[in-house]
């Protein structure tokens, strides 16, 4: 009897502790921004104990699918939704850029010190399987002073579908017509050459282990794990080493031509400091939200994310949105009805 009383008491206590107006919001999608999203949702929950946002990092594809099936309140994706997908949705979906990411070329050249520079032509050639030796003029031409070995290049790419692959192939599609027509851009593509590693850690591990290998990893992963990487020539002809500032600069460069729906690729963006292999990652939010409380909570969260939320980015090595983009996004919040 005593036991039962205790249990009842415990049950009542839990019920009392949960605010009756608690607003649960479910979201799912991209894995790349998961660390910053979970930080945001957690901090926001501390400020607004009645709002609980549950985010499942199941991948961009899953996020889009669940949004279309209406099993989540909003989705998240590393690539913008295609026109087909938007049409298929049957309801209007708004894109809100949240943070920025980039992909960097990482390589393993035994005996070579000094940072390599890559032209867009060299990167496209290597990943198309046309530039096969490290001392190929396409690479050696811009790396005077570095003695490059006459060894075969081992190409490493992501095997799992990923936003990083999307950024990388989007960039290669912009700088190489051959890439665009033969391979194209997506979260997984039909790679002309190379070995596939699972995840950033898989690619980085393979590159580290395999002499004369080159692969691409997410900038944040490279920064956090002190992986060295090369410089890439940007649209204005400068060789830029990827950094959070360089990625933000690419977004600022693209902000002037930003379409109203924010579905824009910022690879190969103009600007002297812009790092060319950069991209936004987006929250996908339905323009019509029936539940008034839910709508208010989501709109308020978006506003917070664009101001206070952005301050948390650099602690987790994400590139912040430039203020031009934030100003435009803040206006777009009003579109949620």
């Amino acid at each position, binding site marked *: 009897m005593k036991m039962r009383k205790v249990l009842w008491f415990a049950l009542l206590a839990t019920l009392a502790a949960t605010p009756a107006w608690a607003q649960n919001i479910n979201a799912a999608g991209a894995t790349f921004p998961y660390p910053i999203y979970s930080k945001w949702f957690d901090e926001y929950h501390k400020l607004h104990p009645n709002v609980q946002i549950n985010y499942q990092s199941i991948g961009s594809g899953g996020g889009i*699918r669940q949004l279309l099936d209406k099993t989540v309140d909003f989705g998240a994706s590393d690539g913008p939704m295609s026109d087909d997908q938007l049409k298929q949705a049957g309801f209007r979906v708004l894109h809100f850029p949240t943070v920025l990411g980039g992909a960097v070329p990482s390589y393993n050249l035994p005996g070579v010190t000094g940072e390599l520079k890559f032209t867009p032509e060299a990167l496209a050639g290597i990943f198309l399987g046309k530039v096969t030796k490290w001392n190929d003029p396409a690479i050696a031409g811009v790396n005077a002073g570095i003695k490059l070995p006459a060894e075969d290049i081992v190409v490493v790419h992501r095997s*799992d*579908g990923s936003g990083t692959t999307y950024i990388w192939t989007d960039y290669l599609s912009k700088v190489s017509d051959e890439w665009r027509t033969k391979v194209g*851009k997506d979260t997984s593509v*039909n790679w002309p050459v190379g*070995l596939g590693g699972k995840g950033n850690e898989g690619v980085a591990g393979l590159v580290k*282990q395999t002499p004369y290998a080159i692969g691409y990893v997410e900038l944040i992963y490279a920064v956090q794990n002190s992986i060295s990487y090369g410089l890439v020539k940007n649209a204005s002809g400068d060789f830029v080493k990827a950094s959070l500032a360089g990625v933000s600069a690419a977004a600022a460069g693209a902000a002037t031509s930003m379409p109203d729906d924010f579905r824009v690729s910022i690879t190969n963006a103009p600007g002297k400091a812009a790092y060319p292999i950069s991209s936004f990652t987006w929250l996908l939010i339905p323009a019509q939200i029936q539940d008034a409380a839910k709508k208010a909570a989501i709109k308020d969260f978006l506003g917070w994310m664009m101001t206070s939320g952005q301050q948390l980015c650099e602690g987790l090595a994400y590139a912040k949105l430039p203020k031009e983009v934030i100003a435009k996004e803040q206006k777009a919040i009003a579109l949620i009805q």
Partner: protein
Amino acid sequence: MATAHTTVDAAGLSWGPRALLRRLRTGDEIARLVTLVFALSTVLLTVVLVEQLWVNSALARHRFGLAFLWSRVWDPVFNQFGALPFVYGTLVTSALGLAIAVPLGLGAAIFLAELAPRRLSDNFTFLIDLLAAVPSVIYGLLGVFVLVPLMRTEIQPALKRTLGFIPLFQGPAYGIGLLTAGLVLAVMIVPFIISVSREVLLAVPRDQREAALALGATRWEATWKAVVPYARTGIMGSVFLALARALGETMAVTMVIGNNPRIAASLFAPGYSIASVLANEFSEATGNLYLSALIELGLVLFLLTFVLNGLARLLIVLTTSRGSGVAQA
């Protein structure tokens, strides 16, 4: 645990209302129904699984038809999908795994069951059963960090030097690839073969050994000619269990196979297995046709397992009928 007045067995059930009532009262009928439901639920599970795979792959099946099975292109960007490289990779790695694991496992099982002292055998078996419980990602990590560098720097160059005239052992030594995946699979499935085969060998009646010894056979001859053939069905069973695990293994294979959907003559070349591509691409597959093609790959894997299991059963029937001393194990 049968009580004294219920002597009917499954084969000789007596029917009719009175008998039914009696069996209900004693609990036999209830037990029969409950266990029947359990058995049917597993069948139902399989049926629902196939049905779901079939329905959800409709888009890809209609678009590509049977050509899906022998098309070699897998291109999510241009929506071209074919299963052949994945089927090839799955079969080759599983076959390699079995080719290494079967002799090794069977040899170890014979030693443990027939030749080793009982106490040693029990301790060994305990350790081997532990191996079977290690999560596959651990095998994958060991593969990446230990086996891959070893393959690249030692084993593959050595194979190239000695057997390099065969196309199977040509090409650049990346360390990862079909051969490495096969080796990792071999390590993963060998505990199954040892564990099950040892149990089966231990279950062979003493008479079988004694008869052979009495005829003047040496200990090895008795083991190889009298005991092993008697246990053949069970040993085959252990091999098929191992094969099933090899076909469906995902994580460890993904980490070492190289994940490249191409069919190359060399075992050093990177390949791709069905389970690996599903694990890799499912979460980010956005297009409907793409998703449907992935599900159809799942269906192909199911059919592959089904066909191989069927062949295995056939093999058992064919071999046991040729007087191996065992009718039904």
